[in-house]
């Protein structure tokens, strides 16, 4: 078990390196820093001096991989690859275009992101499982059919519509909560309620339908027939046998998302003005702040890999077949 986890951890390292290489290639090999500078400063009428200044401000004026001008280890470290990519492993992301330290900014913004993402995760999972259970309990009835149709219809609506519609109805028509914004402490609740509800609703259709399929597949198993042959009621068959088996893939499948909750949701945060990492990313994309985008890619990948690891662990814990072998 321990050996297995160590192996998984070791396996994560090359993946992280791979991610780093991909982002490096994307940001510095596809385009030269000169291209980026020219694009940010406006393509036309840009002097070479301006480009040099732009590059120097951001530390893009070094060679890509090998610095002949530097001395000693500097030949390797005084390069774009080292300062912009390798240093990320030490969580040193440099500073954004506005001069602020990215690492500090990230640590500040994690809180608001989590304040929205965690409730969305927990409520969403709960709502989808409950809805799917309801449909499965009344399977092959009109209720089930109508539920599936509702799910498909909900899946077919753009997420933007849920957000815009929710803001319009709850905030503009009913005046229940502020339309956007954020505050620290308990007052955060009134800002968080609407984005959470909207996200849960937007995700409900597809997850509930998917979970329903998992439940129904579990129903076809032989052990369900055995349970019925014992004289168990349908309710007990569903809750004691089917649910327990189906929850293993559902819960372990959800675990992978937990670490990425820190990243928040791009859309929700942007719409509701929540100062989390999602809106930070959006702002960086709109401002074409390459340093921030690069840092977010790295952190996102690292968190995803942690999620994979957690998935493995949770599988081992949840399924006796793996736990005891």
């Amino acid at each position: 078990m321990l050996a297995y986890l160590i192996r998984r951890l070791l396996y994560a390292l090359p993946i992280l390196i791979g991610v780093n290489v991909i982002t490096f290639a994307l940001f510095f090999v596809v385009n030269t820093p000169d291209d980026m500078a020219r694009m940010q400063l406006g393509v036309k009428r840009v002097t070479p001096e301006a480009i040099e200044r732009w590059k120097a401000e951001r530390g893009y004026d070094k060679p890509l991989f090998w610095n002949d001008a530097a001395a000693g280890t500097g030949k390797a470290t005084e390069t774009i690859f080292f300062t912009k990519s390798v240093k990320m492993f030490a969580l040193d992301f440099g500073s954004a275009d506005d001069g602020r330290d990215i690492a500090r900014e990230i640590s500040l913004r994690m809180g608001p992101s989590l304040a929205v993402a965690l409730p969305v995760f927990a409520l969403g999972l709960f709502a989808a499982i409950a809805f799917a259970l309801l449909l499965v309990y009344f399977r092959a009835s009109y209720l089930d059919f109508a539920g599936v149709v509702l799910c498909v219809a909900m899946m077919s609506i753009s997420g933007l519509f849920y957000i815009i519609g929710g803001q319009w109805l709850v905030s503009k028509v009913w005046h229940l909560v502020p339309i956007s914004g954020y505050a620290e402490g308990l007052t955060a609740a009134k800002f968080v309620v609407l984005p959470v509800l909207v996200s849960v609703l937007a995700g409900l259709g597809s997850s509930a339908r998917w979970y329903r399929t998992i439940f129904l597949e579990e129903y076809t198993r032989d052990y369900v027939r055995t349970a019925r042959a014992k004289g168990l009621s349908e309710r007990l068959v569903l809750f004691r046998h089917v649910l327990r088996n189906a929850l293993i893939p559902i819960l372990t499948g959800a675990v992978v998302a937990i670490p990425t909750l820190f990243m928040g949701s791009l859309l929700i945060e942007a719409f509701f003005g929540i100062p989390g990492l999602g809106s930070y990313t959006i702002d960086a994309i709109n401002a074409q702040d390459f340093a921030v985008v690069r840092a977010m890619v790295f952190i996102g990948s690292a968190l995803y890999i942690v999620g994979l690891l957690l998935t493995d662990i949770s599988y081992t814990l949840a399924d006796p077949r793996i736990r005891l072998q």
Partner: protein
Amino acid sequence: MSLPMSLLRVRDLSVAIGDALPVEDVSFDIAAGETFALLGESGCGKSLTALALMRLLPPAARIASGAVRFADTDLCALSEARMRDVRGGKLGMIFQEPSSSLNPVMTVGAQIAEALRLHGDAAARERVVELLAAVGIPDPARRAGEYPFQMSGGMKQRAMIAMALAGEPELLIADEPTTALDVTIQAQVLDLLRALQRRRAMAMLLITHDLGVVANMADRVGVMYAGQLVEIAPRAAFFAAPGHPYARRLFAALPDTAARRSRLATIPGSVPPPGTRHAGCRFVERCGEALPVCHAAPPPWREYAPGHAVRCHLPALPVLAGKVGVTEGNPCGTGGTVADAAAPGGAPPLLAVSDLQVYFPIRKGVLRRAVGHVRAVDGVSLVLHAGRTLALVGESGCGKTTVGKAILGLQAPSGGALALDGAPLAGLAPRRMQMVFQDPYGSLNPRLRVGEIVAEGLCALRLPGDHAAQVRELLAQVGLDAAMAGRYPHEFSGGQRQRIAIARALAVRPGLLICDEPTSALDVSVQAQILNLLGDLQARLGLAYLFITHNIAVVDYLAREVAVMYLGRIVERGTTEAVLRGARHPYTQALLAAVPRIAGGGVEARVAGDPPSPANPPPGCHFHPRCPRAEARCRASYPDETTLAADHVVRCHFPA
């Protein structure tokens, strides 16, 4: 047919799936304490009948008509809530697949306790242990806390039985309870069922396709064919003189000693698919003695003797022309149609396997280093001459299939040597050896036409000649219509698919055919067709067969030589005669004793427990933990080969 004091009374029960009636007008009674066996081939509706009694039919199926009375209750009229009390409480049921029929994430104890609580037993914990002990599970207190995957197949089936017994049912329905188990384990479970039934005076409805199991377990027998009961008889009367032509042909199709070296009687054609409209008798197309009336009107029930009724137009025929039923003392080798060429003198054997090993590494730790090996095949030596048949016998997991794959080159051996016609061999030799697989459904690509499947080898090896003509010829050779080349596999029955697979293997004209359980997925009547075909092909083409099987009866019928495998090693080999009649190894003896035979005598569970894992074989003789004769020296060293006769070798410390 009605008994005076029947516990279960089924009248005119029909089950519908859509418009089809896979079970139609089935009526029978079961008296308290008796065992009634429902016998039939796959798809005859016997399992659906059982599920209908429990009202556990799959969603697509429903009870169309009929009545089921249990004691004084009409089960069909009960509300679902009341029916739940009957399930488990009055009627218990066990199923074919113990591995999938238990909930994988609940401990066995919890699953039994659940049944106990439902039927009003509060002191569950002790009762669970008691029940597990009653079904012969060693160390029941510890086993109760284990999950199903930690148990062997036999153990799981015992746990299933314990669960079914929890509600103290008056009738136990056992749906093919031992079909998924090895023969030695089957003997143990059948023993257990019989003992439990006697002790608890419980009635049993035993559903099976195995005449041997029926012979050893049943008080009365009902034979089902194409959704109908066609014969009901007390066991003795049934085995002495089966009445229905279908039942008589089933007996004749059994490859047992009686039929050795002669062609098996087969039942032509196949079972009509459910949904077929029948004007007359359902068996008429396949019946050799059909009268005009058989086509026109459904046959009536005729009472041959008290309690022995047959649904047939024909007058009672006590004995079918030729051999029927239990015929004793038919000496071997009188038929002589199954070719089995005499040993060629001097020439090197077609296939020589010496000290073959196939190890699979067990990887552990951070660096996934191999910390040990699963010794699937651990030093197997075989010799097979051209035109002969060698049977490799063993229970599941003994490594017999791996031997076949290693010889063929599908599995890289870890050690040992192979020689074909005296020349060493490594890797594939497609033109020399081919394989026929077990599962007729998995062995044909569903996306290719039959013609393309058969021609596959011709194309791959770029053999000369007109491939289309060769395909036609091959299909004819295996008894199929050449016009079938344009059709897809799903249009064929299991037996026909197996014929296609044989044609595919024969296309490249190999000298050796490795047959890996080619008939174990088939019904008895179809098995006979395939065995006959294999015999004919051997006679005509001079093929050698390496026949991998667990079915002793097939070995006895087909093979000239036998090798018995246990845990990756051959424990006894020799001529079929020598090994099967004069077995010396305790394992071989146990295996033979465990086979349920029609001829009576009863099965004997001579060995207890389960085979150990090949990853961690016991020291010394692998069989010693289960062996009744084991002594200190068996625990210390693996026995060497002892040659008993020129062609009889055994690896046991007590060869005498």
